[in-house]
């Protein structure tokens, strides 16, 4: 009996996981503004395309994600390499802790810190504070992915490079870095998605010039039913899905 029940149970869990998103995507192509299917239409995508504020928020999000990805990838990769050479329990522990810290706490702590720092510098919340915050929480993701890659690496490779006359820097650049390339690319994609997607922390440290796509999506979602939100969601869902599948692929090569 159990042999037939288990697959059924499993199928329903997969339905639970995937149907909400698939339905949302499907209804973004609905010509009606209500949740009754009336026919295929791209009207909500057109509305999304023509929304200037939305375009600006998307641009902000892409810019923030791109800059913080580059920074977090560099810092995280160097950090992972440093920790590989000699582990610092304190640093890696802090990294793990930052991963499990509730976002709301990270957000308010950063907000408090920025406000405190502004007493000494004539600055305001804005793009730069958002980017700093994003780099901070992305580093741990990069570190984790790159360290996983390094854990499978043969430490003798670098010794071999030194033995053959390479300096430490050359050993890193010519041997370890090429070997890490897929891992680093995967880490960067992951950093990009977590940055692009973040709402909680961003909303706390953003200024007037830095409204992001998730912030706008949040506001629209709270306002009530709006098929444009479904259209935006579908685009984000598909876009991030592609990045993540690419990242997974890279991690396995």
């Amino acid at each position, binding site marked *: 009996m159990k042999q037939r029940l288990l697959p059924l149970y499993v199928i329903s869990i997969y339905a639970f996981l995937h149907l909400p998103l698939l339905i949302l995507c499907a209804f973004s192509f609905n010509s009606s503004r209500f949740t009754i299917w009336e026919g295929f239409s791209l009207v909500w995508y057109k509305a999304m395309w023509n929304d200037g504020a939305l375009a600006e928020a998307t641009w902000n999000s892409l810019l923030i994600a791109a800059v913080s990805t580059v920074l977090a990838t560099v810092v995280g990769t160097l950090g992972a390499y440093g920790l590989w050479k000699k582990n610092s329990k304190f640093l890696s522990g802090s990294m793990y802790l930052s991963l499990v810290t509730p976002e709301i706490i990270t957000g308010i702590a950063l907000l408090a810190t920025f406000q405190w720092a502004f007493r000494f510098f004539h600055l305001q919340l804005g793009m730069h504070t958002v980017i700093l915050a994003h780099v901070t929480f992305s580093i741990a993701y990069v570190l984790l992915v790159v360290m996983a890659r390094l854990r499978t690496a*043969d430490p*003798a*490779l670098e*010794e*071999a*490079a*030194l*033995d*053959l*006359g*390479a*300096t430490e820097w*050359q050993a890193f650049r*010519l*041997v370890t870095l*090429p*070997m890490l390339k897929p891992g680093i690319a995967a880490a960067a994609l992951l950093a990009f998605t977590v940055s692009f997607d973040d709402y909680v922390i961003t909303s706390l440290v953003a200024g007037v010039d830095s409204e992001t796509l998730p912030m706008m999506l949040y506001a629209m979602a709270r306002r009530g039913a709006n098929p444009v939100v479904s259209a935006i969601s579908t685009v984000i869902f598909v876009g991030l899905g592609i990045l993540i599948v690419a990242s997974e692929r890279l991690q396995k090569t």
Partner: protein
Amino acid sequence: MGDLHLEAIYKEFPSHRVVDGITLTIPQGCFYSLLGPSGCGKTTTLRMIAGFDEPDRGVIKLGDRTLNGLRPYERPVTTVFQSYALFPHLTAAENIAFGLKRKGDPDTARKVKEALDLVQLSAKADRLPAKMSGGERQRTALARALVLQPEVLLLDEPLSALDPKLRKQMRLELKELQARVGITFLFITHDQEEALSLSDQIAVMNKGRLEQIGTPQEIYLTPATRFVAGFLGAVNWVGAIGVRPELTRISREAPGNGARVVEATVSSAMFLGDCFQVETKTPAGDSIVAQIAHGLGEFQRGERVHVWWHPHDEMAIPQ
């Protein structure tokens, strides 16, 4: 150029002392083996010569140049790693060219080609390590280390990753290669057969100390300590006298002409394929094993026999 000297080398790790006062000289152009069980400190010794670890005390000299304190890339010494440590993103030829490029050698292309020829890998020059067989990887690693014309080549159990058949073949190739290039080879191994068959000289290590240095024959036939005798092969101990089982004979009648004889009782007899292994017990309680060829008779359990050997086959070791 010159001999490699280790003078009173000590190295301690947090848990224990790994190398405990080693002094030895490895003559230039020699095929020299460091033989010992795992954990005896031989790999640490190699790493100190290569420059991956620094000794706590003691001097490492090549000719009259001191190597202490030099970084690995400053030492005229290269290593063939146990795992080969081939760079996975570089082809065989690129792996071999790696060291030459670091030196900015203008003759890189020709030297790489010669090195590939030397190890018979010219046809596989553009292969990545992942696409090579175990033997090809091993040869690439050798070529990569040799192409820099080091004064000493360090080999860290280079055959251990190969299957037994290939291992015997590579052993021959290695010996031949060393004769051709004339570079000092320092070969680290725990396999006594490898060490015996390859080396001009062997240093046997145990628990961070040297037990004996000598030619393969000296080490095998006249071991200085019980450890060396036992590590290189099975031994029958009768008091302070040791005899190898393959040099021990058994007969029903007493042998003449000055042989050393012990009377004993057969406790077991086993057929091993190429010989019989007969285990006997002396009245004093010693157990003596003899390996005897086919046709020298079969012995039954419980039989009273004469166990004997020639005095010149004895190994006398003070206890």
